[in-house]
């Protein structure tokens, strides 16, 4: 493999990784607070992509309006899902919460099939994302970089929100200890809503960027990215935001590179993620950044 080709794969891997990371953050934040594997999160990704698609294709909005609008709508949907399906179950056995997430996931996917139709739509990239950039012998289309840059900006904003704002700090406190944080006068409810809004917004951004990278959208498009992003979150140590980012990049890059170096294994690509995950968990049962929590007896 030439060095140029390697760089091309690497760029590809980083852009895929940043998508996984964007989606993984929502998983990890929700898990941190509610201990819920929100399996509907992948479908929120799909909603984001469709919202952007309809904004651009149906209402003919320019991308710089359609995309942010899609993100806002999806964030609102994320909050609504939490209010209706998860909030009433907070005090109940966790299997109920998990099943609620499964039900919501089925619901969104199949509503998607009913409303949008089962056939895929072609997603048109904004022109500036479709520029062919050549570097010596290789050429990379501009969306690869734009995805990475956008994701980078979003990560920076997120880290600022989580570390520097009141709501963000309350969120982190909540994920450490929901009971005592609730007692010291933090409005738990509002923080949970904030978490879902933030996670869904990032998922929507991930969905839109995903659609620019793989420009075919269908109602089940969120399933695999969602699952991979969840793996990324667990790899990084679920509940840990920087961990989710690391996990996302690790997963994206290794997926692309393994297939690049061993093309005969490309059929097994979706199995790598799990193989990596299982191997890692056997040695670090709480992920890369996760803290070991020995149960006090």
């Amino acid at each position, binding site marked *: 493999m030439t060095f140029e080709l390697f760089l091309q794969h690497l760029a590809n891997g980083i852009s895929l990784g940043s998508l996984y990371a964007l989606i993984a953050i929502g998983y990890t934040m929700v898990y941190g607070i509610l201990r819920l594997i929100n399996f509907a999160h992948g479908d929120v990704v799909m909603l984001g992509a469709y919202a952007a698609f309809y904004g651009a294709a149906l209402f003919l909005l320019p991308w710089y309006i359609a995309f942010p609008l899609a993100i806002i709508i999806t964030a609102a949907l994320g909050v609504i899902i939490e209010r209706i399906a998860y909030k009433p179950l907070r005090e109940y056995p966790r299997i109920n919460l998990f099943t609620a997430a499964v039900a919501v996931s089925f619901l969104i996917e199949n509503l998607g099939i009913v409303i949008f139709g089962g056939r895929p739509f072609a997603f048109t990239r904004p022109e500036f994302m479709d520029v062919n950039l050549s570097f010596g012998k290789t050429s990379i289309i501009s969306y690869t970089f734009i995805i990475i840059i956008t994701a980078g900006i979003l990560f920076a904003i997120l880290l600022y929100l989580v570390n520097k704002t009141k709501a963000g700090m309350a969120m982190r406190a909540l994920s450490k200890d929901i009971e005592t944080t609730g007692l010291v006068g933090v409005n738990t409810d509002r923080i949970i809503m904030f978490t879902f809004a933030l996670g869904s917004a990032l998922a929507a951004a991930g969905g839109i960027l995903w659609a620019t990278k793989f420009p075919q959208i269908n109602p089940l498009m969120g399933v695999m990215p969602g699952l991979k992003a969840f793996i990324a979150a667990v790899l990084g140590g679920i509940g840990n935001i920087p961990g989710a980012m690391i996990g996302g990049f690790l997963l994206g890059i290794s997926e692309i590179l393994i297939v690049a170096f061993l093309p005969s294994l490309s059929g097994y690509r979706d199995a790598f993620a799990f193989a990596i995950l*299982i191997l890692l968990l056997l040695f670090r049962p709480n992920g890369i950044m996760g803290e070991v929590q020995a149960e006090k007896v």
Partner: protein
Amino acid sequence: MKIKRNTLLTLAALAVFYGLLALAENTLNTYWVRILNLCAVYTIFAVTFNLIFGYTGQFSLGHAGFAAIGAYVGALLTLSPAQKQANFFLQPILPFLANVEMPFLPTLIIAGLLAALIGSLVAWPALRLRGDYLAIATLGFSEIIRIFLVNWQPLTNGAMGLKGIPEYTNLYWSWGAAIVTIFIVKRLIDSSYGRAMKAIRDDEVAAEALGVNLFKHKIMAFAVSAFFIGVAGALFSNLISTIDPKVFLFTLTYQIVGITVMGGMGSLTGSAVAASLYTIFLELLRPIESQITIGSLMIPGRPGMRMVIFSLLLLFVILFYRKGLFGQKEFSWDWLIGFLRGKNRKMKTSQTLGSTGAADKENKS
């Protein structure tokens, strides 16, 4: 005396059930017979999930993978050599399988044993993990199994799946297997081993401090579950007569979780009822996905509608019947008799209520 009575009642009920199956097999059309068969397959899925999660507390999401193993064993051991040649036109099947053709019973048992073996191999490392980590690892193994099956063309014919599998599954086989599953799982959870499993579910630390070997009992639950899931998988492929590997995506596992929770975590009765309701319900709703004409009004079909209704219903049950339809309650003759008696008494006088209570106590001990 009482035990004898209950055994007799059970035997009688089985005889009646057998009669009903025979009636169904001979009078209903193939479409409905297939649905009733599917009810049995899903019952096995739900009952086994209940064993592993509802009674042993291990959040395993590996069902789809184990079912896939059973389904492929069921297909590959029953397909005739000629059919195999027809199926594997891209690349011939592995030689050791080319000329195998087995009767159904040994096929089912091998399907179960292989699923149990692979289930135990999966569980062996995975059981070091707890809670959600166990869930994601088992889900991962399930997907890895599926991806291998899709890619291992000389063994499975890859993404094209398999066709022409003999339709051996009938109501006697499917419900026979379901009843055996329920019987064994019920006996297991009521035994001392089952008590140990429930202790693990309730409090691992305390269970281990009482001398319960956690690993042994978890593996046991895994292996027994995986065995019957494998059998159900084989019943499934020999019922549908084709295999499409996409069926065994992890979403199948989610469906099974949904069904089991709907029926009630910790109720085998609930699992069986919910699995059957789910299957029948989805079939009854099939028309709403095809075009309907009412008078001159034509409503175009909407694929996906059935699952929309199912997921709404699932959500409704979880939100409003938080313990599922049956909670942890189990059907039993004592319950039925008490129920019937209680009703009669209540209708007569309120005075006898006290004695009913006493009678119930006697029944229990």
